C-alpha cells in the first residue's frame, strides 16, 4: 500500500470518527437550541396572554385543545394558586399524520386581579428524526468534500511533494557499487528529504570508498604475490639443475606444481578483480563465430588427446559488442571447462546463434548444488587440479555485459547457455 493511500485512509477514518462524534454533539446542540427556542416562544406567548389579561381583555371562550393555530388554553381557576411554570414533553395525536407526535407543553399559573388563570400552550417539537436526517445529510456532504479534498491533496502530495523522495528512491535503485559513483545529495526544500539525501550520499560514499579499498587491495595483493612466486619458481628450477636423487626431484616437481597453481590462482583472482573493477569497459565488435573456430582449432590437439569429439553448429558472423579480451577469456574458459570436466571418449556440442551460445558436454553428474556452481572456489571435484574460478570468471563477464547464464544437467550432459539478451534490445 502506498504511503499516500495509507495516509488518506487514516485521515478518512479519523474524519469519519470525528464527524460521527461531531454529528452526535450537533444533534444535541441543535435539538437543545430548537427546544429552547420553542420553550421561549411559548413562555413569551404566556407572558403576552398574561399581559392581555392584565389589560382587562377577556377570553370569553376559553380555548381548549383543537385550535391548531395556537393550541392555547386559558382557564380561570376557582382557587388561587401560586404562580408556577411547568414545562413538559408530551405526545399529542396528530390528525393529519395519524400518529402521536412529540410536543412541548408549557403550562403556567398566573394570578391577574385575584383570579388565577391556568394558561397552557403546546406545539410540535421538531422531530428528532428530522434533526438526525439533517445532521446526517450535512455530515455526508462534509465527508464527501473531505474525501474529494483528501484524494486531491493526496494526488498533489504524492505527485509534487513526494517527488524528491521518489527521485532519491530511483537513484538508490539504480545505484551500483561497481560503478564507484556515490549518490550525490540534491537540494529539496523539505528538511526530511534533505536529511535523507545527505544520509544516502554519506552512506554510498562510504560504501564506494570501502569497496574501492577492498578491490585495490585484492588487485595489489595478487600482483605482489607474483614476485615472490617468481623467485620461488626460479629457485626450484635452479634446484633441478643440481644433482638430485629421483626422490628429491619428485619433491621439487610437486612444489613446482603447487607454485604453478598458486600463481594461476592469484592471476585468476587479479583478473576477476579487474573485470569487477571495470577495467575492460571499452567495447568492440567481436566476431564470436571466428573466435570459436580459431580456438577450437588451437585446442585441436587436446581434444584429440582426450579422445573427445567436438560438434559445432555455428551461425556465420555472430557479432558481439564486448571487450575483445573478455570475449576471448569467456569463450576459452567455457571451452576448457567442457574439455576438463568431460569423460573418456566424450562429446562436446557447440551451438551459436545471434542470441545464444550453448555449449554442452558429456560428463559425470555434479556432486554439488548447481546453484553454487558459479560461486568462487566451488569445485565439482576437489581432487582435481583446478582452482575453481573459471565459472566465476565466465559469470562475471556475462553479468558485466548483461548476458544471462544458465546451467543444466540432464542425462549425463552438462549444458551451459549464455543468452545475449541485451544485444537484441
Amino acid at each position, binding site marked *: 500500500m502506498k504511503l499516500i493511500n495509507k495516509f488518506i485512509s487514516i485521515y478518512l477514518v479519523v474524519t469519519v470518527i470525528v464527524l460521527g462524534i461531531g454529528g452526535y454533539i450537533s444533534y444535541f446542540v441543535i435539538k437543545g437550541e430548537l427546544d429552547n427556542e420553542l420553550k421561549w416562544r411559548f413562555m413569551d406567548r404566556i407572558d403576552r396572554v398574561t399581559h392581555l389579561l392584565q389589560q382587562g381583555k377577556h377570553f370569553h371562550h376559553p380555548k381548549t385543545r383543537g385550535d391548531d393555530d395556537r393550541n392555547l388554553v386559558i382557564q380561570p381557576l376557582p382557587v388561587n394558586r401560586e404562580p408556577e411554570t411547568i414545562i413538559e414533553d408530551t405526545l399529542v395525536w396528530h390528525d393529519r399524520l395519524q400518529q402521536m407526535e412529540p410536543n412541548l407543553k408549557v403550562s403556567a399559573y398566573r394570578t391577574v386581579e385575584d383570579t388565577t388563570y391556568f394558561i397552557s400552550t403546546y406545539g410540535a417539537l421538531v422531530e428528532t428524526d428530522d434533526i438526525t436526517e439533517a445532521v446526517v445529510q450535512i455530515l455526508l456532504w462534509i465527508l464527501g468534500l473531505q474525501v474529494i479534498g483528501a484524494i486531491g491533496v493526496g494526488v498533489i502530495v504524492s505527485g509534487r511533494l513526494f517527488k524528491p523522495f521518489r527521485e532519491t528512491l530511483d537513484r538508490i535503485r539504480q545505484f551500483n557499487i561497481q560503478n564507484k559513483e556515490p549518490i550525490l545529495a540534491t537540494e529539496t526544500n523539505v528538511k526530511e528529504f534533505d536529511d535523507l539525501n545527505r544520509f544516502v550520499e554519506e552512506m554510498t560514499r562510504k560504501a564506494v570508498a570501502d569497496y574501492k579499498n577492498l578491490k585495490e587491495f585484492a588487485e595489489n595483493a595478487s600482483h605482489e604475490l607474483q614476485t615472490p612466486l617468481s623467485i620461488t619458481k626460479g629457485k626450484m628450477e635452479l634446484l633441478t639443475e643440481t644433482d638430485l636423487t629421483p626422490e628429491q626431484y619428485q619433491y621439487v616437481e610437486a612444489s613446482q606444481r603447487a607454485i604453478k597453481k598458486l600463481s594461476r590462482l592469484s592471476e585468476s583472482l587479479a583478473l576477476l578483480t579487474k573485470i569487477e573493477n571495470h577495467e575492460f569497459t571499452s567495447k568492440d565488435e567481436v566476431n564470436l563465430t571466428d573466435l570459436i573456430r580459431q580456438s577450437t582449432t588451437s*585446442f585441436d590437439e587436446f581434444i584429440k588427446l582426450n579422445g573427445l569429439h567436438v560438434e559445432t553448429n555455428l551461425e556465420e558472423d555472430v557479432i558481439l559488442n564486448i571487450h575483445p579480451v573478455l570475449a576471448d577469456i569467456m569463450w576459452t574458459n567455457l571451452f576448457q571447462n567442457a574439455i*576438463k570436466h568431460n569423460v573418456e571418449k566424450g562429446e562436446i556440442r557447440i551451438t551459436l546463434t545471434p542470441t545464444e551460445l550453448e555449449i554442452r558436454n558429456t560428463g559425470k553428474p555434479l556432486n554439488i548444488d548447481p546453484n553454487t556452481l558459479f560461486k568462487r572456489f566451488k569445485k565439482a571435484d576437489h581432487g582435481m587440479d583446478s582452482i575453481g574460478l573459471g565459472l566465476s570468471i565466465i559469470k562475471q563477464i556475462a553479468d558485466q555485459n548483461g548476458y544471462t547464464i544458465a546451467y543444466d544437467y540432464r542425462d549425463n550432459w552438462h549444458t551451459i547457455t549464455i543468452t545475449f539478451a541485451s544485444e537484441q534490445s
Partner: protein
Amino acid sequence: MKLLIIEDNEDLLQNIRTYLKREGYICEYARDYKQAFDKVMSYTYDVVLIDIMIPGGSGLQVLRELKSVNPQTGTIIISAKNALDEKVKGLELGADDYITKPFQLPELHARIKAVNRRNQRDGREIINVNEIAINTDTMEVTVNDTPVDLTPKEYDLILYFASNKNHVLSKQTIAEHLWGDYVDHLTNLDFVYQHIKNLRKKLEQAGARNYIESVYGIGYKFKVTNHA
C-alpha cells in the same frame, strides 16, 4: 652475449643471473632507475631485460631512452602485471618481447635467444648442435645435412631444447612453452611425452644421437656433452 638485467628484487635477479651465467653470458645488472639509465647510456648490450616497476622511475622510461640511443638492442619487459595496456605500451615503445611474472627461467632464456637472433641477423640463423642444424629463418632442421620433416610443434620443441641445453626441463615448462596459457587448465601432460617420443624418433631416424634424456619424475634434458 652481453646482457643487462634491470630488476630491483635481489632474489629474482640472482635467479636470472645464476641461470644465464651458466650459459656463459656476461650479465650486468641495475637495481634502480638511475643505475639503469647510466648503464644504458654508457654501454651497449645485446639484450636488456627490463622490469617495469623499479625504484626511482619506470622501466618503460628506461626502454624509451634505450631505444633512442641504441635502437638495435633487444629488449624484453618483465612485469608482474598481466595488464594488457602495459604490454601494448611496452611493445609500442619497441620492446621485442614481454614476459609476466612468475616466469620460468628456461622460458626467459629461450626468449632471450629468440630476441637476440632476430636482432643480430648476421648469419646466426643456424643453430648447430653437433650433427643437428636448426635454421631459424626457414624453420628447417637437418641432421648431417639430411632434412628432417618436423611438425611446427616439434620444431618449437627442438629449438627450445637447443636453447636450454643441459638444463632439466619439466613437462610443465615444456607444455607451457609450446601451448602457452592453454595448458593452464589441463592436468594431463601426457601429450608432451607424445611429442617428445615423435621428435626423438624422427631425429634418430635421420641419424642423430639421442640427446633427449628423460629425467625421472620431472621431465627431460637435452644433454650435449661434447658441444663445440
